[in-house]
């Protein structure tokens, strides 16, 4: 018996038309087709989605956690980037 593990896949689900695919978790599958099917079985049992993307985890290029200081902290002090300095006129809803 081979002890080799199947590759890991990242699963993304679109919950309804017009929304983006969101990462929901990861699973093991022998190939892309099986990854989509396993994604269906594992992550859409309660009507969570209408579309599935599967990406092999090794193909995800991620930021380096040790660089988090330089990557993300600078934006903490730039509150002016949030559009919170405008007066919303009366009668405008959904803002």
């Amino acid at each position, binding site marked *: 018996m081979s002890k080799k593990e199947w590759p890991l896949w990242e699963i993304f689900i679109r919950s309804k038309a017009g929304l983006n695919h969101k990462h929901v978790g990861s699973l093991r*599958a022998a190939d892309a087709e099986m990854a989509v*099917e396993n994604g269906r079985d594992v992550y859409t049992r309660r009507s969570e989605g209408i579309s599935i993307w599967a990406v092999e985890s090794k193909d995800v290029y991620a930021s380096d956690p040790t660089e988090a200081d330089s990557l993300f902290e600078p934006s903490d002090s730039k509150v002016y980037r949030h559009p919170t300095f405008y007066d919303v006129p009366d009668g405008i809803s959904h803002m």
Partner: protein
Amino acid sequence: MSALFEYIIRLGDDSLILGHRMSEWCGHGPILEEDIAMTNIALDLVGQATSLLNYAGDVEGNGRDGDKLAFLRYDREYKNTLLVEQPNGDFGTTIMRQFLFDAYRKPLFEKLQNSADKQLSAIAEKSLKETKYHLKHSAEWVIRLGDGTEESHQRIQESLNTLWRYSSELFYTDEVDAELLSQGIITDIAEVRAEWEVTVKNVFEEATLHIPTNNWKQEGGRKGMHSENMGFILAELQYMQRAYPNMEW
């Protein structure tokens, strides 16, 4: 006993017993993902059994509902095929049993969608969506295992050799079918069989599996004559209702 009741019981019992067999895998699947996939299939089948047996109870009109039919009949009153009561064996045997069944159920539900019986046609339409996925799942696994390693090929070929003898009973017909055929409630099973044969041939070809040349067949389930497996299944299935009559949870 009406032909319609008998026919729905046959369909419902196939779903119930195969669903029970699949549920035995819960927590024992070869990998977590497949464990969930098999449990999903089990739940689909039990759901189909619920619809069918509830409807059978309505047709009978004696106040029995799906639960009463599922949990309070004796083995001779169950009309499932021998195929679906066969033990799970290894994963490949379960997959092969499922594939032989799914390849029959898909064309069957396709035809039943046009049944003159509205309720049966509605159940068929809903179940067909589930069954198409079951077939995709089981067929892909048959191909993976058949055209996989030397060991997986040999083992699933053995499963096929064991289960093949039970496949012809899926197409069993008698006076029940003849009567419903004349009423436009079902279509000729030969059409279902023709599609089954094409599916089976194509998938086995891709899986490099050989259909056994030994054509000895085993039948009986449709008449209530079951294998020794049935008693064990019913003991587990019916335990609660027998031990605590009328309990609900």
